[in-house]
């Protein structure tokens, strides 16, 4: 018998790197200085060839601030060059550490990224204003579905189930949220429905991938197509003719948190968001804690690394996997509510715009770790918000290249150019009991 499943699929089954391929030699410490150097020199070349004069204004306050911070006005060219110097200094430190065979601490790339970005912005926004709060706050808002999706992806893959169906979970979540919120009049009910919808997609994924051993990547891809077809169909046949009753939900309002929201700079960025964002903060913290510090997390990781070993100590492998991906699907589904209850009010065809695939990229770029994946998702959110800001400023970088960034970074990441990532050993490998 042959079925669609017995295609020769990657023999490791999942996304683990192939053993046949010659692994790159251990040169991880050399990559960082090279990348930093290239970026710093690149920015310098941009400045030399397309120099700009004038001042750049960094606006730190919002109009409603309790105690406003002053605007910072700096000369564009000088600031950019100053930041290049900082970048080069950090690169030099990285080179020194490489030669001395010392580990590269996190502050080097982080500091570099900050300095590089300030330098780049003061060049790009010459004679203009950068609204720092809306740049960063907007980045968080755009990253919300990505973070939810990435957390769902991380959880599933740590348990050994590749979740390509994140996009489907987001989309069905958005769909269910819009209908439920419209029918009940409560966005909170919509949020719950979104979680349930995501879990439903995960349940189908589990049925095929865990119970019937169908290749997980195939199921994920096909599920995404299925959800697109399903929601498009329902949108045209049911939602559009009955838009008033089924597709006009109330949006989540922006709810500033007292006190925290008043902190200069930090408050407006982090604590004047919608309730969905606050839910996200809690979930990120919970997932990160539970995965590493609880019995549940230990077992989830064991099942994803070496299911047979977990089985021999009495852990029900497939039950654990089912539970984990249902939770993962629910979390990803919550992210769907962002599209139809926060971003705009109501569902539309394919409204996730492939966000699930960026979330997947964040999972990999974040090395299957909840905090890192969250940061990666924030970075991708920042990139797409920056693109919007820059196109308003009329900066010379084509917006399409900014939008491309998350995908290009991920390709570099999986190619091992930005540090090797190591997926859970049994990621994507179904577990068959004798």
């Amino acid at each position: 018998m042959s079925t669609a499943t017995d295609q020769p699929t990657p023999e490791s089954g999942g996304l683990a790197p192939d053993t046949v391929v010659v692994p790159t030699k251990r040169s991880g410490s050399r990559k960082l200085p090279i990348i930093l150097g290239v970026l710093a020199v690149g920015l310098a070349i941009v400045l030399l060839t397309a120099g700009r004069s004038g001042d750049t204004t960094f606006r730190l306050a919002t109009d409603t601030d309790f105690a406003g911070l002053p605007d910072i006005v700096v000369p564009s060219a000088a600031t950019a060059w100053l930041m290049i110097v900082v970048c080069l200094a950090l690169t030099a430190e990285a080179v020194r550490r490489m030669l001395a065979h010392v580990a590269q601490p996190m502050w080097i790339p982080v500091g570099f990224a900050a300095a590089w970005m300030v330098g780049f912005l003061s060049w790009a926004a010459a004679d203009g204003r950068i609204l720092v709060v809306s740049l960063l706050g907007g980045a968080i808002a755009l990253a919300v579905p990505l973070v939810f999706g990435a957390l769902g992806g991380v959880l599933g893959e740590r348990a050994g189930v590749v979740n390509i169906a994140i996009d489907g979970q987001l989309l069905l979540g958005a769909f269910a949220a819009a209908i439920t919120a419209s029918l009940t009049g409560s966005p909170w009910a919509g949020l719950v429905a979104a979680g349930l919808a995501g879990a439903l997609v995960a349940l189908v994924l589990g049925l095929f991938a865990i119970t019937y051993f169908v290749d997980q990547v195939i199921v994920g891809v096909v599920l995404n197509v299925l959800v697109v077809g399903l929601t498009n169909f329902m949108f045209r046949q049911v939602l559009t003719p009955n838009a008033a009753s089924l597709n006009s939900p109330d949006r989540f309002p922006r709810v500033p948190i007292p006190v925290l929201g008043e902190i200069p700079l930090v408050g407006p960025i982090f604590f004047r968001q919608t309730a969905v964002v606050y839910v996200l903060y809690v979930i990120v913290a919970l997932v990160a804690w539970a995965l590493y510090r609880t019995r549940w997390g230990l077992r989830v990781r064991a099942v994803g690394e070496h299911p047979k070993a977990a089985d021999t100590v009495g852990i029900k492998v497939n039950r654990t996997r089912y539970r984990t991906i249902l939770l993962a699907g629910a979390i990803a589904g919550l992210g769907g509510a962002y599209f139809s209850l926060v971003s705009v009010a109501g569902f539309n065809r394919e409204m996730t715009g492939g966000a699930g695939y960026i979330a997947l990229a964040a999972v990999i770029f974040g090395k299957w770790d909840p905090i890192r994946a969250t940061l990666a998702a924030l970075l991708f959110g920042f990139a797409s918000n920056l693109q919007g800001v820059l196109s308003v400023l009329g900066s010379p970088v084509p917006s399409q290249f900014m939008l491309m960034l998350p995908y290009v970074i991920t390709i570099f990441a999986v190619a091992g150019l930005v540090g090797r990532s190591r997926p859970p050993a049994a990621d994507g490998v179904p577990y068959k009991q004798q």
Partner: protein
Amino acid sequence: MSDADKPRPDEKPVDAGDTVTEERPQDAETTDDSRSRSLLREIASGNALAGVLAVVLAVLVGSVMIAATDETVRETAGYVTARPSDFFNAVWEAVSGAYNAMFRGAIFNNLVDDPARQWRPLTETLKYAGPLILGGLGVGIAFRAAMFNIGGRGQMIIGGGAAAWVGFRFEGLPTIIHLPLAIVVGMVFGALWGGIAGLLKARTGAHEVIVTIMLNYVGYYLVFWALTKDWLLATPGSVNPKSPPMQESAILPRVLGDQFNLHLGFVLALVAVGVVWWVINRSTLGYRIRAVGENPHAARASGINVGWIYTVVMLIAGALLGLAGVNQVLGTVTSGVSTDIDAGIGFDAITVALLGRSRPLGILAAGLLFGAFKAGGFTMQAQENISVDLVLVVQSLIVLFLAAPPLVRAIFRLPAQEAK
């Protein structure tokens, strides 16, 4: 990976000495079609049946969706206990109406008299099947090397974009030069876009699933950007992200005369089926591709350059999807390329390859079936006001049901496979 982690393709619990054990679970069998496997055996073991049942099941689900969203059905459902016949009539009307429309749109239109117009739907089916078959071959050949090419969309867009550039930019060339040139350029660019994933896998171990997904978006934005540049694909003076229309000399000629839309692209797809069949089953390259797909370790130990095979396979896959893109740009939508030129075919191709079990002839059949769905779907939408997206649902359900025969068997309460 240490030795201990190496996957053991078939770890048997017992080694029964000298006896020949044919105990392996059925689903571990190969997809190789060079082996003669009697149709009879396949039917007897319930597989062909499972395939048919998968289609039946998917169509049934589709029918439920049609009925459930039909106005009349919902009205009659309100008094179903009082007059059930109304309800069942309404269901029948809705479902049969939809499938009739699909048939009229895909195969034969009995509502018109002119034989040419009667058979026109069939040619539409073939037209839609062309790129699906090409795309399915591109995904399927990668499957044979155990690679999952999800990058059909990107490869089509890049290939189609490049072909379009040649197609509208060069004026005054004779068709005999212009058309082949545009086709070849499209295939080459598609091949390069696919080849990136193969090369990265070969050199760094980067998983092709991730790389091809990401390249879809990179390709999309690249063509999007090219559509804003006059020297690339933009139409000067227009803000629409769409290229100028193709030159007459670069358009795939219609093969059945002007009253039918069927163009040379379908013939190219048939040729591709033959070529890919020969490559996989009869050539040494195909032998090596299959060896790498089934066991890359043994292939490497046998002197086969595994990385090279990964790269070559993705080049071939990309070229086939590039040709699918060409098919769209120079055949189906000649009014100019835009970023939605792939029309979902990049992902449809995955379902085609899965339904066709990665075998060229299977892909041909699956492409024709899904082409018919597509052609019929548009008619259904136009005549019965049922969204063509239903086709997408049915298509993905078929693949899901087909992927898990035990599920289908359980639903229909067929005997389990074990009893041979």
